C-alpha cells in the first residue's frame, strides 16, 4: 500500500471492551476454537467437535422457533428475520474464529449472535424491546451489537455492513493484531455497489477479511436468477483478484473446512477471500411474508433432504459417533436455555423513556 492514513484514535469503547474480562455467559461455551475440520486421521472431526456443532445449531434453531412464537403472540414487534435453515454457516464459521476476530452481518443476525456466544437472554430481550437487551431495547431484531463477543452488528440496510467489514479488517492490519474480519451478506446484498467498492479496497490493501455470502437463493421475494447476471456469486471477486469458492452451506463440516482455509489465507496477509455458502431459509423473509414466490414443495424438499442438523446427525451415525445420551442432554439443556431466555424477555422491564436521548452523542 502506498499511503497509510493517519493513525486513528483508538475507539475508547471497543478498546475498553476488548480488555475487559468477558462475563461468564449463560449460553453454552462458544464452539470449540481452532479444532475446526481437524480430523482424527479418517477425515472426520472428533466427537467433541461434532457435539459442539450440534449444540450450537440446535440452540439457534430452537431460539428462532421461540422468537417466531413470541412474535405471533405480539411480544416482538416490527421486523424479525429468522435464521432457520442456515444454522450450519454461523456455527461452522464460529469454530474457525479466533479470539479477537470480528463478525459483522445484516439484519438476519440472531443466529450469528448466538454462535458468537452472546447471552440468549440479552438477544431475546432486545427482540422484545427491553432495557436488558443488547441495545437497551432501542435497536430491535436487526440492530444488535456486542463488542465483547466480537459482534459488530446487526445492520438493517442491505449491504451497508460490507464496507464496514473491510474497515474492521483494515484496523486489524493497522494494529497488526492477526485478527480476521468475517463479513457476511446475502445473495441480494451482493448486488449493492458498495460491496464492490469494498472488494476493491480489500484486495488493493490486502485486508484480512473473509467475505461470506449466504446465498439462500432469495432476496425477499426475488430469486437470484431474477436479480443477478452472474449467479455464481463466488466469482464476483474475479476482476479484483479475490479468490472465491462455493461451499455447501448446509454441511457444517464443509463450512468449517472452507472457513479454516479462507481464514488462514486472510490471516497470513494474502488479502481477502470470498466464500459463497449455498443455503436455504425455511421461513418467510420476515414475519409478514406471503410466500408467493416459491412453492411449498420446494421448501419441503430442502427440509427433507438437506437440513443441516439432520445432516450432522446422519454423519455422526455413519461414523459411529452417535451419542444418544449426550444428544439428549443437549436437547434438554438447549430447551431450558431457550425457555429461560423467553421468560426473561417477557418479564424484564422496558427501558425508561429518559433513555431515549442517551447514546445519540458521546455525552448527553
Amino acid at each position, binding site marked *: 500500500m502506498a499511503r497509510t492514513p493517519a493513525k486513528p484514535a483508538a475507539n475508547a469503547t471497543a478498546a475498553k471492551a476488548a480488555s475487559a474480562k468477558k462475563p461468564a455467559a449463560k449460553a453454552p461455551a462458544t464452539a470449540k476454537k481452532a479444532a475446526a475440520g481437524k480430523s482424527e486421521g479418517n477425515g472426520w472431526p472428533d466427537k467433541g467437535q461434532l457435539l459442539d456443532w450440534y449444540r450450537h445449531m440446535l440452540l439457534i434453531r430452537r431460539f428462532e422457533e421461540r422468537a417466531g412464537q413470541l412474535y405471533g403472540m405480539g411480544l416482538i414487534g416490527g421486523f424479525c428475520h429468522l435464521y432457520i435453515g442456515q444454522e450450519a454457516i454461523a456455527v461452522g464459521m464460529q469454530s474457525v474464529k479466533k479470539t479477537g476476530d470480528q463478525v459483522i452481518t445484516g439484519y438476519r443476525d440472531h443466529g450469528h449472535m448466538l454462535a458468537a456466544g452472546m447471552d440468549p437472554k440479552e438477544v431475546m430481550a432486545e427482540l422484545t424491546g427491553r432495557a436488558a437487551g443488547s441495545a437497551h431495547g*432501542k*435497536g430491535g*431484531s436487526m440492530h444488535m451489537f456486542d463488542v465483547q463477543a466480537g459482534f459488530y452488528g446487526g445492520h438493517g440496510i*442491505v449491504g451497508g455492513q460490507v464496507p464496514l467489514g473491510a474497515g474492521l479488517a483494515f484496523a486489524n492490519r493497522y494494529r497488526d493484531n492477526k485478527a480476521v474480519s468475517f463479513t457476511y451478506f446475502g445473495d441480494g446484498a451482493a448486488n449493492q455497489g458498495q460491496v464492490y467498492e469494498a472488494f476493491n479496497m480489500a484486495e488493493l490493501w490486502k485486508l484480512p477479511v473473509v467475505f461470506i455470502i449466504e446465498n439462500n437463493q432469495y432476496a*425477499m421475494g426475488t430469486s437470484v436468477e431474477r436479480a443477478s447476471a452472474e449467479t455464481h456469486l463466488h466469482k464476483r471477486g474475479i476482476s479484483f483478484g479475490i479468490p472465491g469458492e462455493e461451499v455447501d452451506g448446509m454441511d457444517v463440516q464443509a463450512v468449517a473446512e472452507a472457513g479454516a482455509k479462507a481464514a488462514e489465507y486472510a490471516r497470513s496477509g494474502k488479502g481477502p477471500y470470498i466464500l459463497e455458502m449455498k443455503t436455504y431459509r425455511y421461513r418467510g423473509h420476515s414475519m409478514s411474508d406471503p410466500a408467493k414466490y416459491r412453492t411449498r414443495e420446494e421448501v419441503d424438499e430442502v427440509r427433507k433432504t438437506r437440513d443441516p442438523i439432520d445432516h450432522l446427525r446422519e454423519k455422526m451415525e455413519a461414523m459411529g459417533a452417535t451419542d444418544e445420551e449426550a444428544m439428549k442432554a443437549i436437547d434438554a439443556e438447549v430447551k431450558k436455555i431457550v425457555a429461560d431466555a423467553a421468560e426473561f424477555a417477557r418479564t424484564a422491564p422496558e427501558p425508561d423513556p429518559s433513555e*431515549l436521548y442517551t447514546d445519540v452523542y458521546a455525552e448527553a
Partner: protein
Amino acid sequence: MNAQIEKTAAAADEAGKSIPMNMIQSINSGLDVMLGRDPNCLIFGEDVGYFGGVFRATEGLQKKHGLNRCFDAPINECGIIGSAIGMAAYGLRPIVEIQFADYIYPGYDQIVSEAARIRYRSAGDFTVPMTIRTPYGGGIFGGQTHSQSPEALFTHIAGMKTVIPSNPYDAKGLLIAAIESDDPVVIFEPKRLYNGPFDGYPDKPVTPWQKVEGNLVPEGYYTVPLGKARIAREGADCTILAYGTMVHVAIASAEAVGVDAEVVDLRSLAPLDIETIEASVKKTGRCVIVHEATRTSGFGAELSALVQEHCFYHLEAPIERVTGWDTPYPHAFEWEYFPGPKRVGAALKRVMED
C-alpha cells in the same frame, strides 16, 4: 362558459366511476392507468415485478402490462435511481419504487447531483420526468431503518419536487400528476395509512379505508395538482400545518382538546401552497406545525420561517412545532417518539393560552 362545462364533463368521463379503495389500491390503480395511457411509462424496483411489491402496490401490473413495463431490479438503489434518470433524460417516464424511504440514501447522490440538476445544467435541453415512490414514516415498529421521514432532505434540493398524500384519493391524483410532471418528483407514501387512517391512538383498531365515509376514488384518470394544499378540517381558532399521517393525528388532537383548529393538509411540500397557509393563519392568528421527522432542520423549521415572514402581524402566539425527537427512531419507544395526540393537544392548549 360552455367550453368550461365541456371540459369538466370530459374530465368526469375520464375519471369514470368512483369506488372505495385503500391507499395501496388507489396507488395501484394510478400506476395501472398511466401504464395504459402512456407507452413511455414503466415501473421498476425491488420485488415490484413478479412479487408485486412488498406492500403490494404493483400487484398484477407485470401480468397485465408485460415484463417490459413492470419489472424487478436488483437491490441497488443507486443503480435503480441513476438508470431511471438516464431513461427519463431520453424521454421515458420511469416510476421507481424504493421499498422504504430509509433505503433511498444509496441513490441520494444521483438525485441531488443528477436528477435535480440536469435541466439547469443543460439550460432546459434535458429534463428528468422521473417519479420515485417510497413508503415513509413510523407507527409500525420498524426501528431506525424502517421508520424514517426524510422529506426535508429532499425539499432542500432545488429542482426536486416533494409530495406526501394523506388519503387514497390524493395518493392516486398526486401520483398521476407527478408522473406527468416534467421534473423529478419524490412521493413519500405514509405507510401507516396504507390500510386505513391512523389518528395516533395505537390501541384503537384500524378502520379500513373502505369503511371511511366519503372515501371514494375514481377508477380512471384524474389528477390532484402539485403545489395545492387542502383544508382537511375547517376551523377558526388555530391553524395546524400537517401532511401525511399527521393530518389525521392533527384532526383527532384538535377534537380531543376541543380546539376549533383549521387543519391544512399540505399534500405537496415543494412546490408549497403558501397562499392557502397564509390565508388560514391570517384567519386564525395561531399556528402549530406537526411532523414526524426529527425537529432540527425539519420541514417545520421552513414552515415556521415562512409563516413568520408572511403572517407576523397576524400572529397572536408564538408558532409551535410538534415533531419527532432529535434521535434515531428507536425500537422500544415507538409511541414516545411518535408525535401523538397527547403532544399535539398540549401544543394546541399552549398556543390558545397565549
